[in-house]
């Protein structure tokens, strides 16, 4: 067994340097690495390029790092819920690359899987196609898209063991498994860190080979963006 446990978020992210490229798991505020984001705000690392489906809200998620001007560039599919984001974008403080969500997911997966480029139909004929190689397969047009990789991937899982095996819960899985594969250093924060042997090998979502550091996070807020309910 290879032990990947570190004591907390600050230790886990201690060597994330200015101008690093990060991947951050999550869809909206669901399944985001809350503890690592808080530690990055404490550390004050700047010039970050963040690959993440969304950019958080004004006072939570990646929004916290936008407020402190730590982010130089976002690579995302949808960034709508953040006034500070909009302000920085309009003033040119922040760069943004918008990518179709499925292409983003596949580019990250490709980065982890050693596939430097692949063809996808998404975005053909749109602005997204500008400058990209186009090719027809079975009469349908496709774009050549390249892999994405990062210096660090910050992912959040439900459970994990000390050798880095991860299990996700519900739709908090989202981008986390692919990003875990595509980080040179992958840091996993989990709600519950268990001993090796407690997870069923048949039910591991992310094998420990992808995870370099793991710790049990604390104080998860797990904020809900749209609390929709029905009457019993």
């Amino acid at each position, binding site marked *: 067994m290879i032990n990947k446990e570190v004591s907390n978020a600050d230790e886990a992210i201690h060597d994330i340097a200015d101008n690093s490229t990060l991947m951050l798991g999550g*869809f*909206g*505020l*669901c*399944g985001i690495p809350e503890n690592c984001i808080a530690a990055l705000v404490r550390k004050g690392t700047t010039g970050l390029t963040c690959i993440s*489906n969304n950019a958080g809200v004004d006072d939570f998620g990646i929004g916290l790092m936008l407020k402190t001007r730590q982010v130089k560039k976002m690579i*995302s*599919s*949808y*960034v*709508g819920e953040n006034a500070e984001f*909009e302000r920085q*974008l*309009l003033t040119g403080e922040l760069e943004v690359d*918008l990518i*179709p*969500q*499925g*292409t*983003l*997911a*596949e580019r*990250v*997966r490709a980065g982890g899987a050693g596939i430097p480029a692949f063809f*996808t*139909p*998404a*975005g*053909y*004929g*749109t*602005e*997204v196609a500008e400058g990209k190689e186009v090719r027809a397969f079975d009469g349908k047009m496709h774009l050549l898209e390249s892999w994405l990789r990062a210096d660090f991937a910050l992912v959040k899982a*439900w459970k994990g063991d000390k050798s880095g095996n991860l299990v*996700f*819960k*519900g*739709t*908090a*899985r*989202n*981008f*986390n*498994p*692919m990003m875990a594969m595509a980080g040179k250093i992958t840091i996993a924060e989990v709600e519950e860190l268990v001993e090796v042997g407690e997870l069923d090998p048949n039910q591991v*979502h992310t094998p420990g080979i992808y995870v370099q550091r793991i710790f049990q996070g604390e104080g998860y807020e*797990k*904020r*809900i*963006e*749209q*609390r*929709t*309910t*029905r*009457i*019993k």
Partner: protein
Amino acid sequence: MLDKIGIAKRIAQEVQDGTYINLGIGIPTLVANFIPENINVVLQSENGLLGIGPFPEEEQVDADLINAGKQTVTTLPGSSLFSSSESFEMIRGGHVDLTILGAMEVSENGNIANWKIPGKMVKGMGGAMDLVASADNIIVAMQHCSRSGDSKLLKSCSLPITGLNCVKKVVTNMAVLDILPEGGFKLLERAPGVSVDEIKAATAGKLVVEGEIPEMKLD
């Protein structure tokens, strides 16, 4: 003229038994409420859920279980959960039978624009470009005209497009129209109380009218 509920009800009639469906945000989400009980369908949420259940009761709310609109939802018997890349394997691989989504503009050759208005803050395309590039059957739910009264069914889209030649059918507050393979909006049904002439006047793209056009039947 139909209201949003009416548009959703009419689209629900297009839903076939035994199919997998992706519903966009807005009117498309409402469609789920009007699918007849004897029609079995499974709803896909691109953030990683197949088999979207109803909103949770207050004590069931789970921050780890949301739909693509970031609303809290539930699972159903037979649901499955997966990653974003697996979700788009389903979409890109053509496994989702029907996609219903909103639009700002649709052109007579089936182009759709629904992600960007030049000069306004661009929020991003989310999964829309993947959905429209991959789905075999796309129905657009939208108002026939903009608030200023301009037609949204055009000869060609004026806004940046989301996908080319992909929309098969449009259901608006005024009409149901098929997009013809050779181009053009073929008028199939009128909303209650709306005349063919009114639809003609509200459609900037090529409108094809053949024979009597029936009125929609909504319960």
